[in-house]
């Protein structure tokens, strides 16, 4: 006993240390990657902006040295690549120091993009689910629809978006609806694909059980196929909401730039306002991340209510 007891204790301590150091390692890794990213960003800004500055100095026959170039490269008013701190300042200004109703407020533009993202997402998810239900229940529907569904996603959205906007505009549909349709176009696809798989994922025994009860097709759908498909649905919804945001932004590009993050990107590139473009990009990224996280929270909530083991539910 006295021989192996110390060994046990040391193993226990060892495993605890391992957990702790593993967690430290993870934090360290995330910090290191973020730091590396920021350093590369700054170096890129110095390099890209510096090149422009040097050619400017030489055209004007001004004297320059490295420290001057670096200092100026990091604080240009209209840089080629703005620095992270310039983007943060711009974000802070346009988010917190402008009235929300003002066209200079990034919150205003984000709100416009968000509304068409959400509408497009809801429409896309509904369409995706309906298509999947049809496909799962009808072989003919599968063979006739699937090629079109897949083809639809191979056409570049940038080629379709202006057409949709112009055609609908001529029918007096402007603003939210055309943009949402483009979002829907992008977001139904991942939902359809994941739901076809999900609705077919039910266990064979679970199916046979319903067969012994002579359950109707509709009962099989609602009592078995639908609940069995929910983990797949949420995987699809996460992709769909990100795609929906992209669709909304792309849909805002050809609208004549009245509002939205897409309009902000477009006007920024018209006037060479790279800081404004980057602020809008960062905002779009944050919005996308937030939306995906929200879908993830919805997933956890639903799966928890469905009694999924927490350890397994957390894996989502």
């Amino acid at each position, binding site marked *: 006993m006295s021989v192996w007891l110390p060994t046990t204790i040391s193993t226990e301590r060892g495993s605890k240390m391992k957990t702790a150091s593993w967690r430290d390692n993870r934090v360290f890794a995330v910090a290191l990657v973020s730091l590396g990213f920021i350093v590369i960003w700054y170096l890129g800004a110095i390099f890209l902006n510096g090149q422009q500055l040097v050619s400017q100095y030489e055209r004007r026959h001004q004297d320059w040295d490295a420290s001057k170039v670096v200092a100026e490269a990091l604080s240009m008013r209209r840089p080629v690549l703005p620095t992270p701190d310039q983007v943060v300042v711009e974000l802070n200004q346009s988010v917190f120091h402008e009235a929300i109703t003002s066209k200079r407020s990034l919150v205003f533009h984000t709100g416009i993009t968000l509304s068409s993202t959400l509408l497009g997402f809801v429409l896309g998810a509904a369409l995706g689910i309906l298509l999947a239900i049809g496909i799962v229940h009808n072989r003919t529907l599968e063979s006739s629809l699937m090629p079109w569904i897949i083809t639809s996603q191979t056409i570049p959205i940038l080629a379709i978006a202006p057409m949709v906007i112009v055609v609908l505009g001529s029918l007096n549909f402007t603003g939210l609806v055309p943009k949402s349709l483009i979002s829907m176009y992008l977001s139904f696809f991942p939902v359809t694909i994941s739901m076809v798989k999900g609705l077919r994922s039910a266990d064979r025994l679970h199916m046979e*059980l*319903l067969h012994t*009860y002579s359950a109707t097709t509709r009962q099989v759908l609602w009592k078995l196929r639908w609940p069995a498909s929910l983990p797949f649905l949420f995987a699809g919804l996460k992709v769909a909401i990100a795609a929906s945001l992209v669709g909304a932004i792309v849909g805002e590009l050809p609208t004549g730039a009245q509002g939205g993050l897409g309009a902000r990107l477009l006007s920024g590139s018209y006037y060479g306002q790279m800081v404004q473009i980057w602020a809008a990009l960062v905002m779009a990224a944050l919005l996308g991340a937030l939306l995906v996280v929200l879908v993830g929270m919805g997933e956890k909530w639903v799966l928890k209510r469905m009694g999924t083991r927490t350890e397994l539910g957390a894996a989502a």
Partner: protein
Amino acid sequence: MQQAVDNVVSLKPDGERSRKLIDIKDLSLTFDTNDGPVHALSHIDLSIRKGDFVSFIGPSGCGKTTLLRVIADLEQQTSGKISVEGTTPHEARLNRLYGYVFQAPALYPWRTIEGNCALPMEIFGYGKDKQEVQADKYLNLVGLDKFRKKFPWQLSGGMQQRASIARALCFEPELLLMDEPFGALDEITRDHLNLELLKIWEQTGKTVVFVTHSIAEAVFLSTHIVVMSPRPGRITRIIQSNLPRERPLDIRDTPAFMELAQEVRECLATDHHID
């Protein structure tokens, strides 16, 4: 060699003795596979009376599960006749005549035990109150009343299988079809559930058709033991049990029990010899 059940006296009380619940005549089933036809069932003759507890026993591949599935209308025979309660298995299924217990509990993971029990009743359109009363009654019967609100993964394998038995009973079908329901359980749990199943059979007076590959289980539970053998799947013998209906676990140590078990074992051994 083949001995029809008709020739033996059922253990049920006189009133229901003559009633055949399942009648199978010269039934064969052939599966077409890539390797050519497989004769899963060949010329099966069998009748099962109301109130019987009939076990199908045999080595794997002897068609015992297939035969059960034909009764349940989960497979269709290639030739021959089968009637269940005077109609086809298909009609019987539509009439909700039987409850089926699979080898695995097959509980829906997103439903509580109570919810799982209510599933067939939801499909049959029972009212909420009736669902609750029935679920209550049968969860009590299998001893799971304290676990009604639990999800399946929170229960042990034996408890899950008990829940699936409650689910098969709760709409009160006349016939209980069980496909190796305790095959995946340890022996202690299996003994326990065998006792409970006998108790339920006695209390409810159901007809039970039970597939197993355990001789002890078949002898302990059954009024009739149908011994089957493979390639082609066929019935080699039907043995009637002379054990009393009241069967405590230690009946397995009595000479009568051992004699019967020996008889079944010999039947199975002979079949293997033929192979």
